[in-house]
């Protein structure tokens, strides 16, 4: 399953909810303000790194760049472009957006 999160983890609880429900081997794609969680020094960084052991974590590159965060991405997080976003949706049989 592909989980998509678009809200900042330091503003809302949707990343937390997502990580609680995501089962081993699932993919989590961070877009829009959710990408901050995948950057060094963010309060949610430890959660992301712990989750990366069981889940595949992706972050959308254009959203990172638009926030000045392109150079601060955590190790273990895969940066994808819009084409990669489409591929992730196509590769997974189902998808949940944590609005």
């Amino acid at each position, binding site marked *: 399953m592909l989980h998509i999160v678009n809200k900042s983890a330091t*503003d809302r609880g949707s990343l937390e909810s997502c990580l609680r429900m995501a089962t081993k081997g699932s993919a989590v794609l961070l877009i829009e303000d959710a990408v901050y969680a995948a950057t*060094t020094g963010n309060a949610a*960084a430890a959660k992301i790194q712990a989750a990366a052991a069981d889940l595949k974590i992706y972050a959308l590159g*254009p*959203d990172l*760049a*638009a*926030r000045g965060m392109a150079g601060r991405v955590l190790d273990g997080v895969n940066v994808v472009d819009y084409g990669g976003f489409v591929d992730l949706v196509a590769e997974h049989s189902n998808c949940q957006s944590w609005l």
Partner: protein
Amino acid sequence: MSDMDEMEDGSGIVKKFMFLNRKAPHGTVYALEGLEVVLITAAFDQDVSMVFTDDGVYQLMKGIDSKGIEVKDFSKTYRALEGYDIEKLYVDQASMDARGLTEDDLIVDVTVLAVDEMANLMAEQDVVISF
């Protein structure tokens, strides 16, 4: 058409205004709207402070490149505030720490305040407007 300058001959009352910014720049429209309100308010010669707390500190990040999401890069506009005589910019230390940021990461010069200093600053305002 009426330039704001023509409207400045009002009462001459100067109040302390705080604009409190708590949202990240692109995910919602709050950051951009707040900035535009501050620029308009500048014409009224009030005592304006701009405060960035929580995800609001992200508004001031250096190195923003928003071409990929086809959104205007308004981070450059914070550097115009000085020309509008808005020079009191404050950020919250704890919010910076929780995001791994230091003053060097920011596009403008700011004063970093501890939480009790920020609380006092807020308490002494006549008007607080939150975005």
